[in-house]
């Protein structure tokens, strides 16, 4: 296994410790990070361990009394992380309707990219995306794997209201708005599947490291899916995926 450098460990306020590897966005590193995260989660039971692209945040339930001592404990644990690479995650296939009534910016982005809308949809549904972490809004997935041909600047002026389920593009990212929100992403479609619900435990079915595919559905299929979601009779395709 490739060895990554020793991380920088700093206190972050009175109740958190930040562990940084500073390697940027790399899928290979994500799975290394998640392996470390899983071990630290087991080792520090009262502590919430979060990951971003290349950092872990340990959030403590009460103020840390002695940071140096705690840092020593973390360094010790980091040396004990077992060599058990993550080899299985979940792959989710989410339906997206790219109809212009929902993909408000689809035509403009296609024009700007000098491609047919069908080509844009094809490029958006082709990749196997990786879920890095959740943030921004409850249930918002930070996804890696967007085709560089779809890189597009945010809207000059953010919209005051973007619909729940809106699928957007911004710079090198694509994402789904889990709720109504203000937002500056270029909207190309809508996903009828609710990403976050307080009535479910856990409230989101997605975990860091999971894989995700978009599949295009027609307007009538979208409406049927929406109706099925309302009656609770719809689940999307999710299957084991081996890394």
């Amino acid at each position, binding site marked *: 296994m490739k060895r990554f450098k020793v991380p920088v460990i*700093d*206190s*972050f*306020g*009175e*109740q*958190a410790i*930040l562990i*940084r590897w500073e390697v*940027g*966005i790399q899928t290979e590193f994500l799975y290394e990070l998640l392996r470390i995260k899983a071990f630290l989660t087991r080792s520090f039971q009262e502590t*919430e361990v*979060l990951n*971003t*692209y*290349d*950092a872990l*945040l340990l*959030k403590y*339930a009460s*103020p840390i009394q002695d*940071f140096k001592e705690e840092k020593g404990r973390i360094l010790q644990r980091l040396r004990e992380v077992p060599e058990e690479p993550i080899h299985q995650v979940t792959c989710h296939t989410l339906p997206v309707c790219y109809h212009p009534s929902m993909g408000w910016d689809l035509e403009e982005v296609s024009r700007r990219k000098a491609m047919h809308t069908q080509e844009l949809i094809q490029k958006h549904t082709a990749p196997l995306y990786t879920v890095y*972490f*959740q*943030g*921004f*809004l*409850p*249930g*918002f997935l*930070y996804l890696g794997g967007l085709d560089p041909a779809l890189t597009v600047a945010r809207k000059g002026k953010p919209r005051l209201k973007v619909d729940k389920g809106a699928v957007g593009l911004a710079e090198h990212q694509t994402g789904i708005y*889990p*709720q*109504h929100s203000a937002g500056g992403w270029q909207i190309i479609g809508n996903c009828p599947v609710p990403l*976050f619900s*307080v009535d479910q435990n*856990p*409230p*989101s079915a997605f975990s*860091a490291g999971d894989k995700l595919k978009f599949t295009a559905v027609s307007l009538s299929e979208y409406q049927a899916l929406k109706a099925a979601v309302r009656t609770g009779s719809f689940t999307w395709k999710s299957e084991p995926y081996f890394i």
Partner: protein
Amino acid sequence: MSIQILSAGLFSSIQDRGRFGYARYGVPVSGVMDRYSTSFANLLLGNDPEAAVMEITLQGPCLQFMSETMIAVSGLGADILLDQKKMLINRPYRVLKNQKLRISRVTRGVRVYLAVKGGFQTAKVLGSRSFYFPLTPRQLSKKHHLPIQEKKRVPKVHHARLRFDDARYLSKQLEVYPGPEWQVLSTDAQTRLLNTLFSVAETSNRMAYQIKEKLPHDLSGMITQPVLPGTVQYTPAGDLIILMRDAQVTGGYPRVLQLTSQSIDRLAQKSVGEQIRFALKEEG
């Protein structure tokens, strides 16, 4: 056993210490903006310091008690009437069935906290009673029903000698730790951040306090990273954003400073236009 809301005020919500364990789903911590005032109100009633309270912003609600209980309003200052009688802030009171409480306005600071004996018993969502939209309603309204604990006998008031420590709010100074990107700033930019007298902008709310003054800098952008309540973000345009309790869990702006927990409380009581200055606290 409940409290009826006759009018909700400008922005009132139920808050406790917030949500722990859901940040991995992108859920903010939420919880009371000013922890000291909240703990004080709870202490006056002999409650758990983390019991759920009503956070009241600038203009308060009018409430009617459907059962006897004990209450306390804590903070820097507010006009409070129990029926037609003036009630003091930071003192416990016995309230009888059908009495009306009106907190017409916050006279000093921005927020006051209403505690009831045993704490508000509203429903927990993801382990907390704290309001955060859309997990819960955005704010209290007339239609909300506020359950409280049944108390057969309300004990005598006996905490009258506790003193609310006003002094902790008076200073312009916000104590800060270096943030994760502090070292990336040039020495010049660091000095300017610490030597400038800033003021609170109008757009400040439970999510973040914004600063009126812009201060250009030389930081480049970064990839999205974890942030916390109290994180001071520095945007490319030179704006400073101080994240508060409802802040999102990740952010893409350099995190130059981190407020101490006590400074978050202090800032939560600063009004629009009030001055603040950052004071660096070396590794604590």
